């Protein structure tokens, strides 16, 4: 199964094609979900549908490099899409009142303990296997 294959396509065209594909899949998912009465699941259904389509494409032909390049370019600026709702989150922080300390404590514990535990678990489990990924000249596989 090839993960990617090269193809010459200018970035602007790659961006347009990728956006067209994403918009088509998402809007189709919206229509399907509206028909099925699960409108709010449209984004998740779109994500799963896109993943299935791409995996089929990858299995049959291999994904073109322009697609990953375009998605990388677009994802760098993806933060723009959730700025208005993020601003609401910023305001909410000052309006949490009695819940502020509970929310902050929950965030701290539920972020740091899994982060530490998962790192230790992955460190042990990934190193039990002879992994070509870490041996194929990957210079960044140990701490600097």
């Amino acid at each position, binding site marked *: 199964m090839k*993960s*990617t294959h090269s193809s010459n396509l200018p970035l602007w065209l790659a961006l347009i094609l*990728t956006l067209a594909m*994403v918009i088509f899949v*998402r809007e189709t998912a*919206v229509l399907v979900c509206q028909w099925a009465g699960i409108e709010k699941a449209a*984004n*998740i259904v779109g*994500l*799963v549908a*896109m*993943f299935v389509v*791409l*995996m089929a494409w990858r299995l049959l032909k291999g*994904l073109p490099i322009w*697609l990953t390049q375009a*998605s990388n370019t677009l994802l760098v600026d*993806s*933060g*723009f*899409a*959730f*700025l*208005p*709702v*993020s*601003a*609401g*989150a910023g305001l909410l*922080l000052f309006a949490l009142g009695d*819940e502020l300390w*509970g*929310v*902050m404590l*929950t*965030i*701290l*514990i*539920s*972020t*740091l*303990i*899994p*982060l530490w*535990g*998962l*790192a230790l678990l992955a460190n042990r*489990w*990934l190193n*039990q*296997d002879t*992994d070509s*990924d*870490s041996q*194929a000249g990957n210079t*960044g*596989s*140990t*701490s*600097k």
Partner: protein
Amino acid sequence: MTFDSVLTATLAAILLTLVAHVIARILARKLSWLPMVITALALVLLFLFVLQWDYNHYYSVAKPVFDHLLGYVTVLLAVPLAAMNFKGLPVKKLILIVMIASVVGALLPMSLAYLLSLSHETILAFATRSVTTPIGLSVADLIKAPLAMANLIIIVSGLVGGSLARFLFGRVDDDRAKGLALGLAAHAFGTVEAWQISHTAGRYAAFGLAVNGLVTAIWVPIFISAVAL
């Protein structure tokens, strides 16, 4: 601030958001220690304050457009996940780690929030703690959790995980493990931090972020509706 029509207000909201995003991006390039999302967020609030524009009105006119954009970003996340090269990876163990991360990432914060007697809406919002914002907001919408609270939890937890990770990784010497843990537990901020450690850590973080988002987006709404929270 008043507008002649909804269209003018929507265009003004898009422009204000775009300016904040572009300035934050330029600043983040010049000052690498500056977290771009937080800067952009602070700039939006600053602009709203300077223009005396009520947030609720700004959000109501921006929402129709940005809801579409959020949907497109969610769907776009399928690309790096589908393009991941699994050759040579211990796939079974990776799957197990992702499953543990997804379950712990949702249930641990919800249980803690319950034990600390936080409100029902806040407990629901904590279900999205370990997933990246576009997916987290879609999940929050689906489980009827408050979007702003879910977003606050996602942003603050990412910031906490990304900034404190280096202090927790004293006994971890494999960058793959560091990256994977950062992507799984601290999503986008963690992935940015992982790229600072090494390219290997960055790639594993991107994988962890996308796959955890996908897995959590599938089981959390089903779980929440099953237990009727």
